[in-house]
């Protein structure tokens, strides 16, 4: 079975935010929550500026899952980390634990009132029946069930953001690195990129 992964190529990402609004569009994510964010390092510094688009990485040993007090996370057969909003109590622990700041909350009120956690679903919905209205309302689209891949990756303006079966996309990326003149051998593993939280 496929193991779904994202990979963002900093040599290509131009910080156009296409992926970010694609996600909003597909999943009707409300104002204030960004399932995907684009981060730039060394903004404006000649030769040093790089951008990356980041959402939930669907970690194999997912920290969010490990700390959730109600254990509302689960992993699909495709390796996608999803959660159940009905069970979520909005404690914020997943947000403390996640290396990527993926979990977000609709509010940030007094007495720890955050509402239900929301994060990237790899466009795979949630525990409700596939494609149901209830699923859409809570989690947005379920593209995987429709045989499609995440919209953010599908729409990436430069194909910097790859999403899909981990092996296939790293192969695509490796080819690209080779084409750029690298050997491909130094291709990074998930460890280098994302640290312990994300090894696969």
């Amino acid at each position, binding site marked *: 079975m496929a193991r779904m992964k994202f990979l963002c190529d900093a040599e290509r990402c131009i910080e156009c935010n296409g992926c970010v609004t694609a996600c909003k569009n597909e999943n*009707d994510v*409300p*104002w204030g929550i960004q399932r995907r964010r684009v981060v730039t390092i060394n903004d404006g510094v000649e030769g040093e500026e790089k951008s990356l688009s980041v959402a939930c990485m669907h970690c194999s040993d997912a920290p969010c899952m490990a700390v959730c007090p109600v254990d509302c996370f689960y992993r699909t057969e495709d390796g996608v980390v999803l959660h159940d909003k009905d069970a979520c109590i909005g404690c914020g622990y997943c947000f403390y634990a996640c290396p990527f700041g993926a979990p977000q909350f609709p509010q940030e009120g007094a007495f720890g009132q955050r509402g239900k956690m929301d994060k990237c679903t790899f466009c795979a919905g949630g525990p409700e029946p596939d494609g149901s*209205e209830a699923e*859409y*309302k809570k989690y947005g689209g379920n593209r995987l069930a429709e045989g499609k891949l995440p919209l953010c990756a599908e729409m990436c303006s430069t194909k910097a953001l790859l999403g899909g079966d981990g092996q296939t996309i790293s192969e695509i990326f490796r080819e690209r690195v080779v084409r750029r003149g690298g050997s491909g051998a130094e291709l990074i593993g998930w460890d280098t990129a994302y640290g312990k939280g994300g090894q696969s």
Partner: protein
Amino acid sequence: MNALDSIDDLTAAPGAPAPEDADRAGFYGLIAYLMAQAPDAGTLGALGAAPALDADPGLDEAVALATAWQGLQQVAREMSADAVALEWAALFTGTGRPEVLPYASVVLTGFLMEKPLAELRDDLAALGLARQAGNGEPEDHLASVCEVMRLLIERGDWDAQQRFYRRHLQPWVAPCCRTLSANPLARFYAALADFAQAFFMLEARALGYEQ
């Protein structure tokens, strides 16, 4: 168009509705009409002069409705048609986003013209209903779903009423009325919203029964 003609066309269904259903239909019609446009002086007068509701004090919902109805009639008697028209325009029109957006899509998704409207259109088609020519409002407007309820009551189709209410009113009408009622520009419409909310509460209850 003559009001009664259009109703006659549409109530081809078995027999005339029972008197209590006629009243329900009337209330739906009233809410729809007042939401769709500001009432003229005649309608406003008729509203002010309509009979009061005689509720059983043991039924909380009914008492609430009677009170809200009284409140609405009171405002109708106090305000001029012009004032209500100004209020209607201030609340529901604008060159851009109006003050209040009484649409299912907005209440449920935060946006106009969203999926709830698409779902609604499915059901309207199945019920053989459509938007009136020349009406620019999308069908998930509060007035529009109320008119549908009115028609379904006049058709006497209880199941359809139940289903339609559950799918297209229940999820959003209460928050919608709350928003309208809380708007600082609203006076007549705040009273209408309170009445509507009380009415919907009662409807939700009534529709919980079998035929």
